[in-house]
């Protein structure tokens, strides 16, 4: 301890700057304390005031998002948001990023990301029932990208498989924009009864505070700060910020905490996530308007001679903090003993609004709880429309020489299907246990995953979507499109969208053009959430995603959960019955800007991406749900990347049967096949359902065109009577399923 700099040295040598604090922030801390902070205090302030914990750059933007709805039981501000699903039950969900740790140590980075998000869910009292993940890497032609991809997938599986929560869905995108700064976002969904909802409050002055879980080590110190700065060559030096997960211990901690909560004696419970003991203790005290005293000698430590600074800032995994009344202490201890999980009394709730740290009988830190949690300065960053926008948007996307003829167009379709962003993600999800718990009735691979709610006829549908390319080309429309697509994915399985959790992955907010992307895309998301009635109940912000000065595509990721009232109504994406009719809901325009077709065939990411007519989208989704409720449909699949040709091919591959499709319209053939106009769904239905479906669509004013019928082992698509696509389904499947394995085998 004698090695720690004194308050004077911290001031004179600007030690605080190494922790990411500015001069002005340091001054403000001195003011709050009425003196210069010592080493542990300045460390604590720096993590609490990091972007990761304080949202100091993003708060003004987050306030744009609608957060209320009649069914919202818990909105942003707790570990996870919670939404009612009727009959006294509710669903809790939240998303979290682990981008920077995954860039440095992909296996552990991703694994501990899963661990973190699980804690957020079960600390609310909810039992985790599903995990999802959203991944972005550079192209797999590069060895480093393959390594990151392979290890991230292994890490997610290694953790999720072991704790016994099924990983049921997600997305994976490959683009140069993410080379050097991959994105790893993970989402967890849990089930809870209304009367079990926990809040992380340190209530009841005098109540003891307990530490649960394995001993604290020197790992992950300053992880939150690490997450809030750009990656560069020195990032590897930040290795101590990498933590190792212990999914086995997590399983025990989870089961024991759920049992504790179930016993009804918990006053407050919170996970030790980012900024570990510091953040959990300060936030719990703050929410109760209380203070807390921590006796650091009692904190279980893995290494000898750990200092208060190290204990408070460690991000060792699988730890929780909870408060109970004195008379319930024995009961609590009993539970953890049975599960063989360490549980130690480390503090007590006080009434003075201070966080006091006692070590060897001495007070080594004395901080104002409010100051830590609520008084971080908020920054309204400068906003400037990036120069690139005019250039990319004005690109001519419709004047390329036409790709025509059945050979060329079929080859183009296979190329799009084999693009690793479009291609099947089986290579990924077969490494995840997506069936454990026995409720997964739509496995990964469809538009949305579906998990039954045991003991009821209900089921939950969930999807994760992001579209960095479109957001890059037009942040506002891209933001709208991201939300619209997530919701569309849910209605395609027959679920009514309930609410959103979002993860905002952006570059440095200190750059005005990045702040513009952030602001505009969130504004677009907000509008879409408003219109589609899916409030945002939580989320996460990950800024500073840059490598060597190059920012990633602005990538808001939306996780959405929907409810299926009657699981027997659920439908899938693949064609089902021979003789079924195929229909397109929604109109197709010439939207090639930012399309997979342009990227794959013309090597260009440019043009204005499709704009989103939210009213039309709402009508489409409503129509879809009415059709599902009426039991009219055999299948439905959202039309997005790769346009109609790709969507129909995917339906054929998933259903293991062909179709004969005839498209008509004013568009050029290749454009008609590959345009990415939003707001479209391709459905199939038995012939007897034809009129009823037409009536529902007409009633809502949703364009519907019958385009063909299901059957055979070939897919053929004509455009205005000219043959465009002709292929055995098996060959399409080979392109689609083989794309990622072939790239990985090349290693």
């Amino acid at each position, binding site marked *: 301890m004698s090695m720690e700099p004194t308050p004077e040295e911290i001031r004179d040598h600007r030690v605080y700057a190494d922790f990411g604090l500015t001069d002005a922030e340091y001054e403000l801390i001195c003011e709050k304390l009425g003196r210069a902070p010592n080493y542990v205090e300045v460390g604590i302030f720096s993590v609490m005031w990091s972007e990761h914990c304080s949202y100091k750059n993003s708060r003004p933007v987050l306030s744009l998002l609608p957060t209320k709805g009649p069914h919202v039981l818990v909105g942003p501000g707790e570990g996870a948001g919670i939404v009612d699903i009727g009959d006294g039950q509710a669903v809790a969900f939240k998303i979290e990023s682990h981008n920077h740790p995954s860039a440095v140590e992909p296996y552990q980075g991703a694994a501990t990301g899963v661990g973190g998000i699980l804690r957020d869910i079960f600390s609310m009292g909810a039992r985790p029932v599903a995990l999802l993940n959203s991944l972005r890497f550079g192209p797999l032609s590069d060895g480093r990208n393959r390594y990151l991809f392979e290890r991230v997938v292994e890490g997610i599986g290694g953790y999720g*498989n*072991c704790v016994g929560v099924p990983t049921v869905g997600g997305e994976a995108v490959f683009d140069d924009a993410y080379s050097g700064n991959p994105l790893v976002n993970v989402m967890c969904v849990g089930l809870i009864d209304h009367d079990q909802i926990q809040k992380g409050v340190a209530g009841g002055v005098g109540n003891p505070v307990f530490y649960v879980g394995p001993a604290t080590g020197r790992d992950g110190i300053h992880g939150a700060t690490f997450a809030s700065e750009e990656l560069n060559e020195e990032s590897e030096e930040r290795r101590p910020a990498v933590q190792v997960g212990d999914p*086995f*211990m997590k399983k025990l901690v989870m089961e024991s905490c759920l049992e504790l909560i179930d016993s009804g004696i918990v006053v407050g419970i919170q996970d030790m996530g980012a900024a570990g003991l510091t953040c959990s203790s300060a936030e719990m005290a703050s929410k109760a308007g209380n203070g807390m005293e921590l006796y650091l000698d009692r904190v279980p430590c893995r290494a000898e001679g750990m200092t208060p600074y190290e204990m408070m800032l460690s991000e060792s995994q699988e730890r929780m903090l909870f408060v109970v009344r004195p008379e319930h202490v024995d009961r609590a201890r009993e539970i953890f003993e049975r599960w063989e999980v360490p549980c130690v009394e480390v503090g007590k709730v006080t009434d003075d609004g201070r966080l006091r740290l006692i070590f060897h009988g001495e007070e080594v830190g004395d901080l104002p709880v409010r100051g830590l949690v609520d008084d971080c300065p908020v920054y309204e960053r400068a906003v400037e429309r990036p120069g690139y926008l005019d250039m990319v948007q004005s690109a001519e996307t419709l004047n390329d020489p036409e790709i025509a003829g059945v050979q060329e167009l079929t080859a183009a379709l296979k190329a799009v299907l084999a693009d690793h962003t479009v291609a099947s993600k089986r290579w990924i999800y*077969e490494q995840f246990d997506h*069936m*454990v718990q026995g409720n997964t009735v739509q496995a990964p691979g469809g538009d949305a995953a579906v998990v039954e709610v045991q003991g009821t006829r209900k089921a939950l549908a969930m999807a994760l979507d992001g579209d960095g390319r479109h957001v890059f080309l037009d942040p506002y429309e891209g933001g709208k499109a991201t939300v619209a697509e997530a919701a569309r994915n849910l209605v395609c399985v027959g679920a009514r969208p309930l609410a959103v959790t979002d993860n905002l992955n952006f570059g440095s907010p200190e750059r005005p053009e990045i702040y513009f992307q952030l602001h505009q895309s969130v504004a677009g998301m907000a509008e879409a959430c408003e219109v589609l009635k899916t409030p945002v109940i939580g989320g996460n912000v990950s800024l500073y995603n840059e490598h060597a000065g190059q920012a990633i595509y602005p990538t808001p990721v939306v996780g959405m959960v929907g409810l299926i009232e009657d699981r027997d109504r659920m439908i899938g994406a693949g064609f089902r019955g021979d003789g079924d009719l195929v229909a397109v809901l929604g109109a197709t325009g010439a939207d090639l800007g930012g399309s997979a077709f342009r990227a794959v065939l013309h090597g260009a990411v440019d043009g204005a991406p499709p704009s989103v007519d939210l009213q039309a989208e709402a009508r489409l989704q409503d129509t879809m749900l009415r059709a599902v409720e009426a039991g009219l449909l055999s299948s439905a699949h959202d039309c997005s990347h790769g346009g109609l040709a790709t969507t129909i091919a995917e339906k054929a591959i998933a259903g293991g049967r062909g179709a004969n499709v005839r498209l008509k319209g004013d568009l050029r053939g290749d454009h008609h096949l590959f345009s990415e106009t939003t707001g479209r769904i391709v459905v199939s239905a038995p012939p007897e359902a034809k009129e009823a479906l037409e009536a529902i669509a007409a009633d809502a004013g949703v364009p519907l065109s019958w385009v063909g019928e299901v059957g055979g082992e070939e897919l053929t698509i004509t455009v205005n009577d000219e043959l465009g696509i002709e292929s055995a389904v098996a060959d399409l499947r080979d392109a689609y399923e083989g794309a990622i394995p072939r790239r990985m085998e090349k290693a």
Partner: protein
Amino acid sequence: MKAAVITFPGSNCDRDCLRALEEIPGCEADSVWHADQDLAGYDLIVLPGGFSYGDYLRSGAIARFSPVMAALKREADRGVTILGICNGFQVLLEAGLLPGAMRRNQSLKFVCKPCELVVDRADSRFSSRFQEGQTLQVPVAHGEGNYYCDDETLKRLHGEGQVVFRYADNPNGSVADIAGITNETGNVLGMMPHPERATRARLGSVDGAEIFGAIFDFVSAGGKS
């Protein structure tokens, strides 16, 4: 039928197995904590899948020393029906109740997918509801399911009719496509695929329910097949 499902620290298919058993009319299923030492009175004891003790060191290596395992051995010796699924199979191997050992999958990757099994013996108490040569749909989910035994043991397994289930399309590199084997007396079965995940049409298959059903038939018939 009275069944017990053992929960080791880290088991994660224990609830699923209980649920699968409870769906059988006339079956009563108890959850038994690994620290318990009494398994008397059960007709069936299930060691479920999961990651007992994190599968650290080797899968099943630590769980085999759980207090409950001595009781399990006793019951096995008495001829009580014992079913080890996935991690449960691994525990039975480590405990020496079944011959052989598990290696990491040949792909070195965890694999979770529906799988086609071929019924090699339809005369065991676990497979009596099937025909020999029939194919079943039962999913696998494991990282260490690559069964190994030496040639001599393999010969014996085949000779004694101990191989009950084979993979139609080997997902993990197992010797002789082995998916499930019994001990010599035929009362202990270990299998990597998860029958409890194939118990409802909505899950994609009901073939797993027939495995539990066959055991039920056996027990109901007073322990004679």
